[in-house]
Structures are given as structure tokens and as C-alpha cells.
């Protein structure tokens, strides 16, 4: 008890007064992260607060920098595809595809049709897995603990389909320059189809649990507005850019694999707020499910890998190959000097650009809104830092 009064006294005697003798409020510098639930990972945002209002926000990255670009230079292209899946660990297959595309284009390898179909199936299943993760975790950040559990239930079946084919649950390492590591085992098509059907049955539940929920709307509509001009200037891509009203999707803009053969839509938001971003994610799952269904139905017979030389020596030259990662545009700029390893390999990851715009979105927001904004910016720390 004794120290109670002196402490308060000390505080009062030190009370910081402004020139006219009134009590002055101070700006508080608060670290959100690296160990904070809202940054799911080791992102750090240094925010300057006035009460609960954010005056200034500065993301600090690099806590998970693993030097991927240096490691790429020490590995041959088959090893690289296994390394790529570790950048954005929620979408392994999608990370591997553009790396293989680059090599195939440089070496002029023709990929068999069956391999292309299987790549599309796996890429889209992976996209669904990624989106399920983020739809769930966004609810979690807003205090709804249930959607994430349902999301993991739907993930499980698709995840086991992927595991059955590749043997991995996160780092699939299944794409090889020229095709796939091996063909999928019997029963894969059935299992994948079952997973897709279960997802399609469950999506209305997600929509009722969050999209239709009044509290969710109160928390997200009009929160974290991202202007399309600003988004484009910062190189934002993927669902976040589309939520701002720009229908840029690599699958449509510069079709790779055989995406131009499938019928699917591009969900586009109206205002670029957190609600639109979440909504886009849910709609994209539906569209991906449609693609997977079409691809599974039309899966041709054939080989899983094209004619690939035993030693992958890539001719001299430079190439830029990109693909639509679940989080945005992922591309590799590869410079080859004629060796089996790249001379330089730059990975352009979506989360890096997407997070660079966050300071603009947080200025003037409140601390609870920061959670809604960060949760709807859908980033993977490994994808930012590489």
C-alpha cells in the first residue's frame, strides 16, 4: 500500500505540462510484432499512437530472411523447385510452377498435356488451401474463433489429396522442369473431387458466419480502404488488388499452363475495403473449385513429364516468368550462363509488394482496425522476406 501513493505522486510531479500549463498528451510508440498474434509470423509494425489512433505505422521486415536468392545460385533447377515451395509455405505448388515455366521456356521443353492439367489441378487446390487458411485466420483476428476450425475441416480432405499425390503437406516439391515428379496415384481424382464437393457444400456456411454477419460488416466495411491507383503504384497484386477494383489476374492477362481452356470468373471488389478483400477470397475459392472440377473431368491420358535431358543445362539468356500465386503475382527473373544452376535468380514475391503499401492504409486508423487491415492484407512472412 505504501508505494501506491508515492508512485502516483511521482507521476504527478513529473506530469508533463505544455506551455500553457495544461496536461499534454503524448504519442505512444508501440511495437506490434514480431511476437504478436495479429502479425501471424514475425512481421513487426512500429506504430505511433495518439490514444488508439495510429499516427504513423512503419513495417519492419527481415526477421525471416533466409537468403533464398543466394541459395538459388548454389542449386540446380531440380533442387530449386524444392526450395521455391519454402518461400510462401502456404502455396508450395504455386511457387514451383513459375520456376519450372522459366526453365521450360529457356530450354524449349514441351510439357505433356496431362502434366499441364495436373499442374492446374494442384495449383488450384493449393490456392483453395491457401484461401481457406486466410479466410479462417481473418475471422480469428476479428475474434470469431469458429470459421478457422471449419476451414481446417475443409482443408483436410484436399490436403490429403495433395499428400496422396506428392507425399507432402506443405512443401510438395512435385513440379519438375518439363512436367511432374511422378504421376498421381490411383484414387487421386476421386479424393480431390470429394474434397471439392465438400468445400462447395461448406462455403454457404462461411458466407453466413462472416460475410452475412452484421458485426463482421461493422468491423470491415469501409475499413482499410486501398485506392486502386495507390495499389497499382505499389505493385500490389492478387486478391488484394482485385478487391480494389482492378481485374488483374495473370491467369487471364498472360495465360500460362492451359488456363485459357477453363471457364472461370474474376471476382472484383467495389471499394477495396477489408470486407471486399475477404469477399474476393471466398469467391475465388468457388472459382478455383470450378477450375479443379473442369480439369479433373477433362484429365487426358499421357505422360507426366516431357523429354527432359538428364542434366538440365539451361542455355544462356535471361527470362521473366510469372504466375498467379494465391496471394498475387509471383515471378522469377532468371539469368542463366549456360550452367545447370542459375547465375542469378530474383524472386518477385507478392507479399513483399502487398505489405509495402500498409503504412498508407494504417495512417489514421484505430488499433482494432489495424488488426482488420493486417488480417485482410493476406501475407505470409516467408513470402515477404524470402
Amino acid at each position, binding site marked *: 500500500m505504501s508505494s501506491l501513493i508515492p508512485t502516483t505522486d511521482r507521476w504527478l510531479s513529473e506530469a508533463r505540462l505544455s506551455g500553457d500549463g495544461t496536461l499534454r498528451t503524448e504519442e505512444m510508440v508501440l511495437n506490434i510484432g514480431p511476437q504478436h498474434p495479429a502479425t501471424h509470423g514475425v512481421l513487426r509494425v512500429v506504430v505511433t499512437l495518439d490514444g488508439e489512433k495510429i499516427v504513423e505505422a512503419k513495417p519492419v521486415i527481415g526477421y525471416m530472411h533466409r537468403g533464398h536468392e543466394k541459395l538459388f545460385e548454389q542449386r540446380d533447377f531440380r533442387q530449386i523447385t524444392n526450395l521455391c515451395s519454402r518461400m510462401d509455405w502456404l502455396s508450395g505448388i504455386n511457387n514451383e510452377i513459375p520456376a519450372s515455366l522459366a526453365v521450360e521456356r529457356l530450354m524449349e521443353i514441351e510439357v505433356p498435356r496431362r502434366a499441364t492439367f495436373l499442374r492446374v489441378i494442384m495449383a488450384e487446390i493449393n490456392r483453395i488451401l491457401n484461401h481457406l487458411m486466410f479466410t479462417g485466420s481473418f475471422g480469428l483476428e476479428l475474434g470469431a474463433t469458429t470459421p478457422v476450425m471449419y476451414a481446417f475441416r475443409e482443408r483436410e480432405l484436399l490436403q490429403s489429396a495433395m499428400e496422396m499425390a506428392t507425399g507432402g503437406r506443405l512443401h510438395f516439391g512435385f513440379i519438375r522442369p518439363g512436367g511432374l515428379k511422378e504421376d498421381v496415384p490411383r484414387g487421386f481424382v476421386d479424393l480431390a473431387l470429394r474434397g471439392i464437393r465438400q468445400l462447395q457444400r461448406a462455403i454457404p456456411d462461411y*458466407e453466413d458466419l462472416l460475410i452475412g454477419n452484421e458485426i463482421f460488416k461493422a468491423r470491415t466495411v469501409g475499413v482499410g480502404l486501398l485506392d486502386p491507383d495507390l495499389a497499382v503504384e505499389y505493385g500490389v497484386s492478387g486478391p488484394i488488388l482485385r478487391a480494389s477494383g482492378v481485374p488483374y489476374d495473370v491467369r487471364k492477362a498472360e495465360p500460362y499452363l492451359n488456363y485459357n481452356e477453363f471457364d472461370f470468373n474474376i471476382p472484383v471488389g467495389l471499394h477495396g475495403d477489408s470486407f471486399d478483400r475477404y469477399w474476393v477470397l471466398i469467391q475465388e475459392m468457388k472459382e478455383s473449385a470450378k477450375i479443379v472440377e473442369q480439369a479433373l473431368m477433362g484429365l487426358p*491420358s499421357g505422360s*507426366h513429364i516431357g523429354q527432359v535431358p538428364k542434366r538440365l543445362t539451361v542455355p544462356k539468356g535471361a527470362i521473366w516468368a510469372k504466375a498467379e500465386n494465391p496471394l498475387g503475382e509471383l515471378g522469377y527473373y532468371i539469368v542463366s550462363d549456360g550452367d545447370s544452376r542459375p547465375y542469378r535468380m530474383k524472386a518477385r514475391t507478392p507479399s513483399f509488394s502487398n505489405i509495402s503499401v500498409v503504412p498508407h492504409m494504417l495512417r489514421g486508423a484505430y488499433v482494432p482496425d489495424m488488426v482488420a487491415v493486417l488480417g485482410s492484407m493476406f501475407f505470409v512472412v516467408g513470402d515477404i522476406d524470402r
Partner: protein
Amino acid sequence: MSVAENRVDELVTREEIKTLSPGEAKRTTYGIGLIKGLGITLRHMLKPAITIQYPDVVDELPARSRGVIALKQENCTVCMLCARECPDWCIYIEGHKEARESVAGKRAKKFNVLDRFAIDYALCMYCGICVEVCPYDALFWGQEDNYSEHDVVGLTHEMDKLSQWMYNVPPPVELELGAMGPEVKPLPTAAPAKEGS
């Protein structure tokens, strides 16, 4: 031309881009959404749980699952291919040459004899390239997944341990309908018998 001038309605002129937009979803619904949500959780409460109680009930692993790399010691010829192809340099192989008489009285042949085969599982990234490249079917994926250690050093497992893990290597899986194997044998894959199944 800035993007702002090209808002959704104008941007979407291209034939193959069909867009969806969240107009309807944003309407206020005066509590109906809350009640629907309550209905969903109540419905789930009345249904049985979908999870399993892990150590008591163990889910079956698919045949391809990458648990641990097992070594079939007799098949290894100390060719070093796996150690060379490993992206992490985590396979340690030692061997020596030995002259052995193949048939009594005939010319002595030199054989490679394996002295040490160790994998540092702390470094291993479970990519499976070593299993893929082994030309003599000496490496396999086993389904063991309980081999944690108290120290990083303990994760380097030697030959005898790797050989023990051969006990639960599943047989190769049957391929999905329509699979025709590789076009031309591009990489030394493990089981050529898979073709055409």
C-alpha cells in the same frame, strides 16, 4: 492513363474476363445474419466431432508420404549419386574398395563396400531427390514419423538406424487411370515397372 479512370465497369471490357462483384453482400440485414450464424454453430454442436484423438487413433498415411528415408544396405554401391544431388549436403557416405572373388579360382573383382551411410535429418529438407536419383533402389521413403531427439546432434542417423526403418516402407502405388509414365526416361527413376499401369 491512370487506373482510377478505369473503374470496374469500364475496365471489364475484355471478352474473357467475367467479373463478379460484392454489391448485394454489403446490404444491411438487421440481425438476420446473426441468427443464421447461431444456427450454424448449433447445428455443428449437435453433430459428432470430425477430429480424431491423435495418439489413440492414428490416421493412415498415404503410401507416398515422406516420413523418413530408409536404406536398403545391400543395394547400395557407394556410387555417391545421392550425396551429390542432395541440395543440403546432408548425406554422408564412406566406403572402400575390396577385392572379392566372384567364382572360386577366377579373376578377383573389385567391389565398393559401404562403411558409413548417415543422413543429418536436421538439415534434410525432405525433397526426396536422393530417393529419386538412386539407380540401384537402395533408398526408400519409410512411414516412420516419430524420431524426434533432445539434441540436434542426435538427428544424424547412421546406417543401422536407416536400415531398421526399412520395415515400414510401403509398396509402390498404382497410378491413376491414363498415366503413361515419362515420355523418354529423363531421370533415373526408381521403379520402371510402373509404366503403363
